[in-house]
């Protein structure tokens, strides 16, 4: 495997990690608006992701940093091309991040409601926008010979990318509900589980719609038909199993299955792209690839050494932190937010 391929895989892994982890705290963040019946339950939900969401978000930052370092042209084209959606994404992430810290600091009702809305919208918009962006990568974008992407609104937002955005939102929501059922107790836990189960049907419908659209709107089945097909089969298996585990009240396993679905979905996007990183809708020759978008060999080598020596530590202490907070969050304990 060349270093360019390795870094493509690493960027993919970082995005998989991001969607798997931040996916559930986006889902929990969304669920605070309709799953929690009172302020105490909202606090329990928020506290269930309290120790984790910040570190989860760092996966996105690291993915961005890795793109910048390993594929500067990918980073430059994507971030300048998707300018306005990224502005909205940033505003949402900013509002959400401070909301967690601010909401519990003042007892006033209106204060809390305001930050609760920030948490809800800030958890809903980012997975939607990222879903739109990722499906756009697959569908192709008007990238010219100069590697600049000059996209109009409908290049970015269309039936296909909207379907992608909504699918990601639903996936994160179910994933988050199962995380909530894993970390809470009593009636809140049961409601989370029930709702997750109910939402499996619309989730399946969205997957089918998005899959069918993918056949018509992209070339991924032509390029990597077998591999994508295999991923799809595994995805269906994970989906069926998640339903079965929910009905058996094995929340941990069910959560693992929605996580697997997320990982497979993101992996499918990267498999479909490879060896391209952004597809040009103007000409195949203008697509950005792991070669024309990449840094030089020396830079990639240095980054490989650094990343491979740091990653075990990062994974080690992150797993440890989940172990420390493995107990369920009760209403009857000190709640930080």
């Amino acid at each position: 495997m060349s270093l360019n391929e390795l870094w493509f895989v690493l960027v993919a892994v970082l995005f998989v990690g991001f969607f798997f982890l931040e996916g559930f705290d986006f889902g929990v963040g969304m669920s605070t608006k309709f799953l929690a019946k009172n302020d105490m339950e909202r606090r329990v939900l928020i506290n269930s992701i309290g120790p984790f969401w910040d570190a989860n978000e760092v996966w996105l930052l690291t993915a961005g940093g890795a793109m910048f370092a390993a594929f500067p042209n990918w980073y430059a084209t994507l971030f300048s091309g998707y300018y306005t959606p990224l502005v909205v994404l940033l505003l949402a992430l900013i509002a959400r991040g401070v909301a967690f810290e601010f909401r519990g600091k003042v007892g006033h009702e209106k204060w809390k409601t305001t930050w609760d809305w920030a948490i809800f919208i800030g958890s809903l918009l980012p997975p939607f926008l990222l879903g739109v962006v990722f499906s756009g990568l697959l569908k192709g974008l008007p990238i010219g010979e100069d590697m600049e992407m000059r996209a109009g609104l409908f290049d970015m937002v269309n039936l296909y990318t909207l379907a992608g955005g909504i699918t990601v939102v639903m996936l994160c929501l179910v994933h988050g509900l199962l995380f909530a059922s894993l970390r809470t107790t009593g009636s809140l836990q049961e409601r989370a589980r029930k709702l997750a189960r109910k939402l499996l049907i619309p989730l399946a419908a969205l997957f089918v719609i998005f899959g069918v659209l993918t056949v018509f709107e992209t070339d991924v089945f032509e390029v990597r038909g077998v591999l994508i097909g295999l991923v799809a089969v595994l995805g269906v298996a994970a989906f069926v199993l998640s339903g079965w585990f929910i009905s058996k009240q094995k929340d941990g396993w069910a959560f693992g299955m929605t996580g697997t679905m997320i990982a497979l979905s993101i992996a499918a996007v990267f498999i479909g792209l490879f060896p391209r990183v952004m597809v040009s809708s103007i000409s195949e020759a203008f697509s950005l690839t792991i070669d024309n978008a990449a840094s030089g060999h020396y830079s990639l080598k240095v980054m490989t050494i650094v990343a491979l020596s740091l990653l075990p530590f990062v994974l080690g202490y992150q797993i440890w932190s989940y172990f420390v907070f493995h107990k369920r969050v009760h209403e009857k304990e000190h709640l930080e937010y």
Partner: protein
Amino acid sequence: MLDPILLARLQFAVTTIFHFFFVPVSIGLVLLIAIMETMYVTKGKEEYKRMAKFWGKLFLINFAVGVVTGILQEFQFGMNWSDYSRFVGDVFGAPLAVEALFAFFMESTFIGLWIFGWDRLSKKVHLLCIWLVALGTTVSAFWILAANSFMQRPVGFEINNGRAEMNDFFALIGNGQLWVEFPHTVLGAFATGAFLIAGVSAYKMLKRQDLAFFKKSFTIAVIVALLASFGTAMFGHQQAQYLVKTQPMKMAASEGLWGKSGDPAPWTLYAHIDSNDEKNNFEIKIPYLLSFLSYSKFSGEVKGMHELQAEYEQTYGPGDYIPPVRTTFWSFRIMIAAGCLMIVFALYGTYLAWRKKLEKPNNNWFYRVMLWSISLPFIANTSGWVMTEFGRQPWTVFGLMQTKDSVSPSVTGGQILFSLIAFTAIYTVLGAVLVYLFVKVIKKGPNEITSTGSEQLADPFGKEGYHVS
């Protein structure tokens, strides 16, 4: 009509300056909190735990704003400065990626463990967590400054395929610029956090609230403030000497020096600068001082802007290589003035603490001064960066790439204007909320935040729950 370059620069200035209000506070506060918790663990006195928790409240509010405004920083290079990103990504991207991988993960994971881990971790492991957060913030500063140092003095690269490609990673992190810039910035950050704690403590002593608690906080903070301010000045001096060698134009501009300085070179305290006619109309000068600042001796000449402009035209071709002189000149002086005041006040505060004179009522004037002095490090930090970044103009990467060639060709002025307005608006709200919450926490004082936690007492299930966990 809407100039994308101007708007992109304005947005970078607004968002970066705002972000850098919170970064030094975080770096400084977490160090002091780590010191306090260390004293708690080694001495076993509850008072120090209360301190770590009380100042921790301020730290967490501040940290949240620092983190969210930092996300934007990492995205902004690609969004507004895509040509810059393409040109330097090979070199500049690496420290950013390492920063995320090394520092951001560490900070974010261990801060979560610290906030929620008081009852779940042993004392020593909990203490280790806050030290790892402190380490993370400082390591983060190192890597982002490694990236910035490359812009000031590019090293460890070669030009291939029309872009800068890294060819020596160790040259990048061994950059002389980095090793004067990093200690200067981080010590300044320690001073920022220390002045915040010292200032708030002074205010509470003025109000005669929780005297013992705030006396102790003040003492710890003012000692750190003194050491850090003094260290910042020392490394600032190192940096100035380095500047004369590597970016003489910035030095000349920050001195308002059009012609040669003469030998020995005097330092200009005040100048009425006329940038159009390229001369100063009125100057107050202190003899020998510029020679000392530049070479640590009382002789030696410093080159002026006219001479350097001619040299740069020879090297880089025709163009205007003189940065905005008045901005550079005055921001440098404001930074120095704020820094000197910080040293003086920290010195006097340390003297009072050392002679055990803190409780004397005739110190009230000084406590008021210390309260207002909270602003001094912010003024110094901001003006220092304004000098550094304005003084590098017209370059983004000195000698390699100019600012006008760095912006995103596909982004319109209208788009940048929209984001500029949106970010400025949300940042204004964040700033206001932060100040409001700071005041609220400070007014409440540490007594509300006992080791059992304040929310708990207001919480009907609280007491019971505490014993269960």
